[in-house]
């Protein structure tokens, strides 16, 4: 077994969102998350045989948001109708090889629960799949949406592209409170203390000296902002509210095999085990691998739009027993040739055989990314430069930059200059918020 090193980024992200369901359900395709489309993709440059191929191969995605029913009614002795649960769990794993040779594995566990925490008078007391400790925190502090992320290491955006959910190194906590909350500061302080107890992290050091309340940026992801989180509809008519807990774990593996140019990976090499079964509690359990010569091959394919790029994934559905084959275990393998060879090989092969376009590594460079560096020293000469790059070939984007400066860094606002293309530029909107210095 080759030596593995966990490379840098190791992200662990919790996302809770209250997903209001008065949405327009046509936005089923997402820029940021992996989904299965319900309709055959029509926007591709499809050839005739490819369209046929689609009908055979594309899995009709069953967005089964209805109940997780119990099976096997013959074993119930004299029992009533099978119980109907209002919560369900979906798990998925996305494996994407990065152009630099590392493997990016992203686990995502979604728990959907049809309940309302913030409703007065009716206290939520009975938990099944949704964790009780988090549910009680949500109701006590009237939280509308909450994101926590713990990151160790640094995500190399230039080499790896955009992660599915970007997070800075360290711990980050975003909370949106319900509009009925009057004392936001007090609530925030108590909430950070409670969460630091639950996660054994020193979140309680996030006090008023390093907290900001953004006024313009950071709209809550669950509300109508169709770029990040997909609103979930309970049924076709989109009635009623539900809570979605999304737990993700992102790992980048640094696999250096002794072979030159040949980079191979497999589930067994990464995790020291293979998959033998799906989680019995999950209503759907899938593994997505980005489509390069994956073995064992699967007839299921899925397409998704990720950050503006369309990608194709092989889908392994763990709830079907044929996925596991004869050996009752699933070990995804990949053999990957060297980069330049891959480029030509893949275009030729895939265009020929599948008629799909495979984009080059250039595609992975993100459209927008930012850098920051320090020049000079001391209060008089020191400078902090923040550079934002736009890599789109022809489009211009409006950018909103929110910067949180700690109290011990004394910067002079009047020395702020914004330049673009070596010409002075004035920001169209500038707002400054002072927090308390030091208690």
């Amino acid at each position: 077994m080759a030596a593995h090193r966990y490379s840098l980024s190791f992200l662990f992200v919790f996302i809770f969102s209250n997903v209001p369901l008065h949405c327009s359900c046509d936005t089923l395709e997402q820029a940021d998350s992996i989904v299965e489309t319900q309709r055959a993709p029509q926007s591709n440059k499809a050839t005739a045989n490819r369209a046929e191929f689609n009908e055979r191969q594309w899995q009709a995605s069953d967005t089964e948001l209805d109940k997780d029913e119990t099976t096997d009614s013959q074993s119930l002795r004299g029992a009533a109708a099978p119980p109907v649960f209002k919560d369900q769990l979906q798990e998925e794993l996305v494996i994407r090889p990065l152009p630099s040779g590392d493997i990016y594995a992203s686990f995502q566990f979604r728990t959907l629960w049809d309940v309302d925490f913030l409703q007065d008078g009716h206290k939520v007391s009975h938990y099944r799949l949704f964790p009780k400790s988090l549910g009680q925190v949500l109701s006590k502090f009237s939280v509308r949406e909450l994101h926590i992320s713990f990151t160790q290491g640094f995500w190399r955006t230039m080499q790896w592209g955009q992660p599915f959910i970007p997070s800075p190194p360290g711990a980050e906590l975003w909370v949106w409170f319900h509009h009925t909350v009057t004392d936001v500061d007090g609530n925030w302080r108590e909430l950070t203390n409670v969460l630091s107890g639950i996660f054994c992290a020193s979140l309680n050091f996030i006090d008023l000296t390093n907290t900001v309340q953004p006024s313009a940026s950071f709209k809550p992801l669950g509300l109508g902002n169709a770029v990040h989180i997909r609103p979930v509809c309970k049924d076709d008519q989109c009635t009623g509210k539900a809570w979605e807990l999304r737990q993700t774990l992102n790992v980048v593996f640094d696999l250096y095999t002794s072979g030159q140019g040949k980079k191979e990976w497999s589930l067994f090499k990464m995790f020291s085990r293979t998959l033998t079964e799906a989680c019995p509690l999950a209503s759907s359990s899938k593994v997505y691998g980005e489509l390069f010569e994956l073995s064992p091959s699967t007839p299921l394919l899925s397409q998704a739009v990720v950050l503006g790029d369309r990608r194709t994934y092989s889908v392994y559905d763990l709830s079907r027993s044929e996925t596991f084959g004869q050996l009752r275990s699933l070990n995804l393998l990949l053999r990957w040739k060297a980069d330049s060879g891959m480029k030509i090989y893949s275009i030729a092969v895939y265009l020929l055989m599948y008629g799909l376009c495979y984009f080059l590594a250039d595609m992975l460079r993100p459209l927008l990314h930012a850098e920051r560096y320090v020049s000079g020293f001391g209060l008089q000469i020191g400078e902090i430069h923040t550079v934002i790059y736009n890599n789109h070939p022809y489009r211009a984007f409006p950018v909103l930059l929110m910067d949180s400066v700690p109290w011990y860094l004394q910067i002079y606002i009047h020395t702020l200059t914004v330049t673009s293309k070596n010409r002075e530029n004035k920001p169209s909107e500038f707002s400054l918020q002072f927090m308390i210095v030091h208690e």
Partner: protein
Amino acid sequence: MAPVQLVVIVVGIPLWWKTTETYRAWLPFSDINQLDILQLQLSVDVEVVFSRGTLTTEQQKKVPHNLVNVKEHHVDVIYVVPESSLLLPEGVKVYIGRRRTALLRSSLVKSSWTLNEVLSNMNPEVEQIVGTMSFNHQEIVAALSDRVRMTKVTKESMADSMRAIKSSPGYEITFSLLNPDPKSHNLHWDIEGALQSYIQPLLNKLAPIANFSVDSQILYYAVLGVNPRFDDGVSGYTLSADSLSHVINPVEARLGSNAASSNPVLNFLLYVPDAHHSPLFIRDHSRREVPSNAFHSPRWGGIMVYNVNAMYGPEAERPVAININMAKVMGVFLAQLRLMLGVQSTRPPVGFVLDSPGSAGLADWELDRLMWSRTVENIATASTTITSLAQLLDQIGNIVINDNIAEQVSSAVTSLQAAVAQLKAGNLVFALQYSREAILASEKAFFDPSLLHLLYFPDDQKFAIYIPLFLPMCVPIVLSLFKIMSEMKQRQVDKQAKSD
């Protein structure tokens, strides 16, 4: 004369003294000292009703005929029935009913006795009855065990006193279903309905004592900390009593406590063993099987093991859907809950028969007993808190006493005094209320963070600040004072010399 020195001495020094003293609001120290010598007097009203045939006609004439309205206060009513009465079975002397009534078989009454003599003859039995229905010496001493050393400590009484959870204004009760094997068992429990029908009536009845908040959860892949051993005799797995203390530890980390409140938590776990370790039985210290298959840990909660292997055959498709029989489970949990909350399983004296607790799970007199011991415990705790706070504030002059702390302390003191007075008068409900208020106020005052503001401000620092400021200024003043004094002396000597 010397204006600078005058100003300094007359105006300066008092001004500095006044402006640098810490704000200390007034506290009723004398009352608090009185509370320290805690003297409790508990009284309970008992009404004895003589039925026909127990007294002679002359004795009957002396007895008043009016009935006290029993709904107003907690009065224990004892009905005395004739010796030959068939209401009580053979050999049974006393029957204690569900609602604060008792039947007492009368002993021999001599016709020559006066009413007082009759009553004094019945005294020991009445005392026994009241001791069972309201309070007795051991219980009160156990409630005061923080302050009073128990003189006669038996192993049983020690165990009893340590089992009940400490008095608190509110409790959280959590029911958890542990499923270590979701691949084989798909468990379903109707916890909401079961809680409504079994637990909620008891909690409603206990409402005067504390607030209760109940919730439930299901934990998957939660294993016990102990590997059970296979026993051929019962063809199942057994957990011995010695290993039970290790069972709870790995599970407890996953149970979670309520983030929303700081009340103590009582956990009740229902464990369904996995398919490879079914059935699982619990053995007690004498290696016998426990019929309820459950055990409890004092001041923490209880665990019950529910075996499901009999409900399906080996050919059933996994996971097997199983509906848990909540009646059986709730019966066990209810019994454990009663013990946790301090409803003592009384061993009545010989010849006593107790009625069953009824639909709420708690007899009225059991509630009374709980209220008595809780009131006494609350009063003891509150007075301990207040007296230690007063001692602390007295000894350390540096601590700031804000107005709100003084208010809390005063209200705690008045509530305590009221509670003690109500206990003396026998009004149990009011006494309990006052004692709860006293505890809340005393805890609030004791744990107030504003007490610590100037605590760590040592005297050395004060001198280090004052000396560079005042010393240079004081030196010429003091010197000039000396000069004035020596001049005055000189003048006196001159005067003396002149008069001579």
